[in-house]
């Protein structure tokens, strides 16, 4: 580390050039960090999809309902471990931009199929004892300051009550957390029995079923059996693994992720050129000084490391500040205030970012460094 001052002193040589290079590296890594959080947000459902979960929906489309009675048939079928159902409520809390999902479910069944939803036992009991009770995820609770005991009014244009009133009131009896960082904790769940007996339309309808198979290898077979069973009935079904179901939603989003990766690759390529150019100029300008260092007794390899050290320091300053800034901005939370219930800087992207910092430093410095290594003292001193 005794050479640090020597390496660092070269950054002061052309202060503006160094500053601009560092800034462009900073921006690239900021972009990298922030986009990786957005990518997670867009693909969160896909990432947490569980291979042993099947989703059964109406064959025509997700908005067509299925009879509740199907549940009894499905539950009896071979390979089905647990079964639950959910329905899209589509309610609005105060104003449309406050979007978060709400779904009527059966408490015990739902939690059995979704073990990643963590609800304390006493809150589950309270939910089972309160017909108008609802539980809400941590993200939404924090966002609107919901607390246990609050009464939350939700307007549902799709599901008016029998008397025509569109406003439903739920008593918050629990707040759940996600077992994993990627678990979506934005939905509000309320009781299906309350929903079923209160809304205006026909009884006994659900949006879709979700089941857990006894063995992930059986998933395809079970799906086929279910669809065969309801073929030619008035509501035919389409069963698929949860991943595929979520992916159907996320298909366009997947394309967006690919575009993001393409953009980031171009950004990094540009940054590599910028940083490489800075290093090449910097070495070119002090050919003579490098020759003097060698005459003093610095070895060829030593000068190689001096130049690589310099480019690595430039990359590290810009890259770490960029990643740090991205981390700060991501920690500040979902920029859309609701559209991205899952929004964080994934650890593997942080590690990838750090690796990129090192790789950029080496890649930008390697050619000038080799040039410095090969420099012949006598020739360089003549110039």
């Amino acid at each position, binding site marked *: 580390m005794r050479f640090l001052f*020597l390496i660092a*002193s070269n950054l002061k040589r052309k202060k503006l050039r160094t500053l601009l290079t560092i800034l462009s590296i900073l921006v690239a890594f900021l972009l990298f960090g922030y986009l990786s959080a957005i990518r997670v947000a867009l693909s969160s459902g896909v990432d947490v999809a569980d291979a042993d979960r099947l989703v059964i929906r109406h064959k025509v489309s997700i908005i067509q309902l299925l009879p509740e009675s199907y549940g009894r048939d499905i539950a009896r079928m071979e390979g089905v471990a647990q079964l639950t159902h959910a329905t899209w409520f589509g309610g609005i809390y105060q104003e449309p931009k406050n979007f978060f999902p709400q779904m009527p479910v059966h408490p015990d069944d739902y939690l059995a199929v979704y073990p990643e939803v963590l609800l304390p036992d006493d809150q589950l009991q309270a939910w089972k004892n309160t017909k108008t009770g609802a539980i809400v995820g941590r993200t939404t609770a924090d966002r609107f300051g919901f607390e246990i005991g609050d009464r939350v009014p939700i307007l549902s244009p799709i599901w008016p009550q029998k008397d025509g009133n569109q406003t439903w009131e739920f008593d918050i009896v629990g707040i759940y957390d996600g077992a994993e960082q990627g678990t979506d904790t934005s939905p509000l769940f309320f009781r299906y029995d309350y929903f079923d007996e209160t809304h205006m339309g026909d009884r006994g309808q659900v949006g879709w079923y979700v089941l857990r198979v006894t063995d992930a290898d059986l998933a395809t077979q079970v799906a086929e059996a279910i669809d065969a069973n309801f073929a030619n009935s008035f509501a035919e079904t389409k069963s698929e693994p949860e991943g595929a179901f979520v992916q159907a939603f996320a298909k366009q989003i997947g394309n967006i992720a690919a575009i993001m990766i393409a953009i980031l690759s171009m950004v990094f390529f540009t940054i590599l050129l910028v940083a490489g150019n800075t290093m090449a100029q910097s070495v070119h300008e002090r050919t*003579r000084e490098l020759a003097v260092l*060698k*005459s*003093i*007794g*610095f070895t060829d390899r030593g000068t190689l490391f001096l130049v690589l050290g310099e480019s690595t320091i430039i990359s590290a300053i810009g890259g770490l500040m960029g990643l740090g800034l991205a981390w700060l901005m991501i920690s500040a939370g979902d920029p859309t205030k609701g559209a991205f219930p899952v929004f964080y800087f994934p650890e593997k992207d942080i590690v990838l970012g750090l690796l990129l910092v090192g790789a950029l430093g080496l890649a930008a410095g390697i050619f000038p460094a080799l040039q410095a290594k090969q420099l012949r*003292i006598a020739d360089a*001193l003549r110039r």
Partner: protein
Amino acid sequence: MNDIASPSAEPASPEPADSAETLLDLRGIDKTFKRGSEEIQVLQKLDLQVPRGEFLALMGPSGSGKSTLLNLIGGLDRPSHGEIHVDNHRIDRLSDRKLATWRARNVGFVFQFYNLMPVLTAARNVELPLLLTRMNGARRRKHVATALDVVGLSHRVKHYPRQLSGGEQQRVGIARAIVTDPQLLLCDEPTGDLDRKSGDEILDLLQALNQHHGKTIIMVTHDPHAAERASRTLHLDKGRLNRED
């Protein structure tokens, strides 16, 4: 990062000058350069012996090969033929890496245009050769202070090269050359870029280093007035060395 340092022992303590002992011995040196397809023979069957403690001046017309010869002696370049012995070590056959280490321990270079790092202070410039030794920071600073004191620049430690006069910059260059206490100083036109007064001061300094610190000095110069300070002057012409008339 240890690789930057060619492993080096402490600088050798000055040994008593023994005028009979040969420090530098060049035998049958040829040096040719290729320029395209053309070969230029710069040095031809050149022999040179320099006793320890001598102050030798090298003169000769421009392009006669003075710098080339100095580079060979200092291990910055290799002869096409011949042998170079310094202090009974043959240096022309050392690997690049070993040669670098040898330079760090045994030679100090002084250049016409000082060749200081503009981004480093005088003290940091002088410290550079010590980075290649095992000395810790405190000892390095002590040696730097001593070297700057010898050249009379104790009051300019924190100055950058651009804040110093030409003469002062050359003193920093000399301090850098002597800070590891090498036995041999190689100076290529050290006063070539200085006015008479500053040049004389530099020559006084070199003479003092030769007489009081036992440095063997080889100085290339165009200036007969400067050459007068040396104990011997040789002329390089047509690839050979000739005694002064």
